[in-house]
């Protein structure tokens, strides 16, 4: 479907619940979560354990896995995953050089 020509025709704001309904919110991010595999409990136990980052992500950007995977297309960089990680496996890294 061509986004430049097709109009929704709705008189009200309306969408089907779906991934990315509000756009690729990853653009909003200033800090990027980076997961250090060797610290992640799931990797260390080679099982789908812990997964607290998945449970707490408010934007449903994290998939359960060994280790959990983060969809940076939608991650807004809120840092909740880094806060809740019991083994400090997730660090928040500035997206642009020079930012704190």
């Amino acid at each position, binding site marked *: *479907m*061509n*986004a*430049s*020509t*097709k*109009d*929704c025709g*709705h*008189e*009200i*704001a*309306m*969408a*089907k*619940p*779906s*991934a*990315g*309904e*509000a*756009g690729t919110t990853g653009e909003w991010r200033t800090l990027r979560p980076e997961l250090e595999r060797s610290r992640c409990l799931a990797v260390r136990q080679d099982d789908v354990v812990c997964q607290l980052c998945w449970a707490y992500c408010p934007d449903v950007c994290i998939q359960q896995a060994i280790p959990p995977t983060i969809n940076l297309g939608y991650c807004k960089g809120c840092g909740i995953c880094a806060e809740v990680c019991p083994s400090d496996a997730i660090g928040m890294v500035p997206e642009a050089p020079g930012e704190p």
Partner: protein
Amino acid sequence: MSDAMTSVMTGNEAAATAARLARVQVVAAYPITPQSPVVETLSHWVEQGALLAEFVRVESEHSALSVCIAAASVGARVFTATSANGLAYMNEQVWWAAGARLPVVMCCANRAMAAPWNVLNDQQDSMSVRDAGWVQLYCRDNQEILDTTLQAYRIANTLNLPVLVCYDGFLLSHTVMPVTVPTQTKVDGFLPSTQALPIIDPNDPRNVGQVTLADPRPNAEGVLCHGYMELRALHHQALERALQVIPEVDSVFAGTFGRHWGGLTWKHLLDDAEIVLVAAGSLGMELTVVAEALRREGLRTGVLGIRAYRPFPGDAIRAALGGRRLVIVFDKAISYGHEGPICSDVRAALSVDTAAPIVFGAVAGLGGREITVEQLLAAVRKAHADCCAGMRRRPTEWINLKLQATA
């Protein structure tokens, strides 16, 4: 009963009767004076089985309108009523109902806003939500309350807009007068079945009123969707279409029931009038008595009643008032620090007219302050004298104000 029946009833009973005849399916309301008898009457009928509707008791006006919004979103015909601080309390949802383009019909028994606390009539409450994107209609007597509430459903369904039916608290809400009640069959023929934009269906879920940023943006399926400003422009266009739809509905109503109310505005002794008195609601009826008395004094006076306040009937106002000598606008509300709201809008509508009359504003009846014909006569005579003395503008006149002049 095959024929219309005339009963003596209050304005509140007329509003409730219209909601019953419209076959409302969901009523949600919180009691507030002077509206309470509207929903008390409806709750009585629901309890009796005379009205097949869900009556939802809520803990606040905010929830009352929220319930109506939810019910309208699944396609139900809804009704609520409120006044003053109740309307203020539901303010957030007033905007939501409009932006979600839901055909909600709400009656407002006009009452003064607190503080200080006051349960009596003025029109400050509904004026304070004039910009929210609802159609606002003002009634002058109890028959018009019944008829306008029925018309409101047809207007709401035609345009996907909520409609606020305003009538003066106590002066109409608690005053009895003869009202002709149409038959259910005729009302059924007049009112189409309701259909909201969209009908929410659990099997085909929708997110309605989701985050909508400044610019148009493709949705998850790649279809370009409006930005916030496009949706607001469409909303505004719907209000502008109401300038045609309100008179059309009044005219279809007249064809069915034999009564019409003027559409956007109404006129009394206006044809040759040099002085025109403007007001919304029951005050307009009192001004007809004033105009007739002034004509006996030799002042050619008429009345222009505002029935539709939003959308504002600028063209009708220009057509009715262009070329007159003097227009006096009586507001039962004020935009504090400026002037009466109807006065401002009338001035603005006339500003591009080279034959614009002089417009003086007056504020009257705040918090139930009595407005007598004698006071109105004196106010018009004074305005006429000021006009004859060459005055082109003057401060808003406060009718029957009892402040002592300070030394």
